[in-house]
């Protein structure tokens, strides 16, 4: 059985200079208990993302999982970044992800 979890994210912005789509997701008490710890992170986007929180950073393939954030608090500020492919425009990249970036966090109370 999959652990309890929740999908986070939203509408992302694309930077031609950075050649990336990016989104910041601040998760505070309104969204999540400070006691919850990460048990898994999944990238549901149709392209790889670089996911970061504090000093932890991981590149997760499309549809892939990462254990890099295990036991980290779910609360905090997460950043998502998806690089544009060579020659790809911002419009095309945004269309490919329906202007959204999301990630799914499995969580538990940890110890």
């Amino acid at each position: 059985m999959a652990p309890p979890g929740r999908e986070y994210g939203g509408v992302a912005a694309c930077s031609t200079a950075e050649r990336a789509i990016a989104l910041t997701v601040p998760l505070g008490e309104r969204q999540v208990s400070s006691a919850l710890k990460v048990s898994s992170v999944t990238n549901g986007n149709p392209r790889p993302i670089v996911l970061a929180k504090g000093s932890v950073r991981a590149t997760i393939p499309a549809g892939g999982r990462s254990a890099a954030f295990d036991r980290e608090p779910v609360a905090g500020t997460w950043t998502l970044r998806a690089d544009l492919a060579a020659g790809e425009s911002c419009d095309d990249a945004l269309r490919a992800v329906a202007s959204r970036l999301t990630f799914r966090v499995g969580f538990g109370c940890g110890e």
Partner: protein
Amino acid sequence: MAALDQIKTIVVVIMENRSFDHVLGYLSLPRYGGRTDVDGLVNLDTDPRFASEYDHQIYRPFPMADGPLLHDLPHSRREIAVQLAVSGGTPTMSGFVRAYVEASHSIVEQPPPLGYLTPDSVFMSDFLARNYLVCDHWFAPLPTDTQPNRVMAFTGSATVDDTKSRIIPHRNLVFDWLTRRGVRWRAYHCGFSFFPLFGEFDHILGGNFHSMRQLASDIASDDDDEVPQVIFVEPEYGDSPVHFGFSPNDNHPPDPIGPGEHFLRDIYTALSSSPRWAQTMLVVIHDEHGGFFDHVAPLPVKIPVPAGALYQEPFVTTGVRVPALIASPFVRGGTCYRGNLDHTSLLQLFAEKFAGDRRAYSDDVNRRLDQGIESVSSVLSREARRDVPAAPATAVSVTQVLRSTKPIINENQKALLLAGQKLLAHDRARAIRQFPELVHLQS
């Protein structure tokens, strides 16, 4: 002979306030047949197009059993702008939960705007989709609520951008257009009609308006030279100020959709059991999406604010997709039409059929045609089919709407109340003969 020439009667039914994904999106789900020809629901757990965001949390569509909702869903012009969530000039269709929370102040795991129905709730729409034709790119003409979208359907021009208690200013009313061209038309209504809102009371009381109870017998008894060439069939509106003999069956939330499904079955059965079915086209659409989610962005269709309009900001897109079904011997069974249509596609159809030129309705309609809105005639196939599928006998759990004795008074209810009072003042005796329930109105 072209299919359109062979069609003698066009029947139009406009229901209320449901989106395409909410009613017919399930057609694309594997467990319901996985139709790849329909742009519906797919990969709901992962496809970003189905992710709605509120407060950085993602909400996804979920199956919803038919039944009354706690309240109506947000769908004013301002609220729809929130739902479309335009980013970089592109509607992302990610704001349905945000609009709901802002309107209801309620955050729940399964927000009602993201509910989708399944065949057991929409047995008649499912029957029509499987045996006739789905239009999966039929859009409400305007990203706003009931009155403006119905005005577009019946005039081709947007003189109002919201729903308010008033007689609606208009030009090129479809009844006038049809009458000028000698086209026989009739409107069937359950209870009180929407059309008195246009204030042209002599049309309403002039003999072209019949009770829905007469539909089957009229079809059976009309002589060839009296059969209407255009028929509008109206449901019992939930917003009607009085109900007498009919309970709401217009699909408008918070009422359930079951009664509307029975209403559609009655219409289809009456039409398809007549020998004239061979020359008939039934078009069933919804006036607007009513706040339910849809994943397809509205079309960029820009129209200037018309003279005499009661608003200043022009519309630059269509509204959200709505469920649209077409039944006729001249459509192939179980097919989907992908072309872009909206309610003014009906006016193009009338122009094509009765004036020989799809540009003959009005400049307002042509402006939309020039931006890619097609005529309904695009869906017709050349060859007529001979089979007449029988409507299902399936009973659904919700067949009648039970109303509280003190319904909420919203703007459309106020508008219909005003129209009823004005109709009574115009000719009380004829008004009550046409709409007996008006006797209960306080003047």
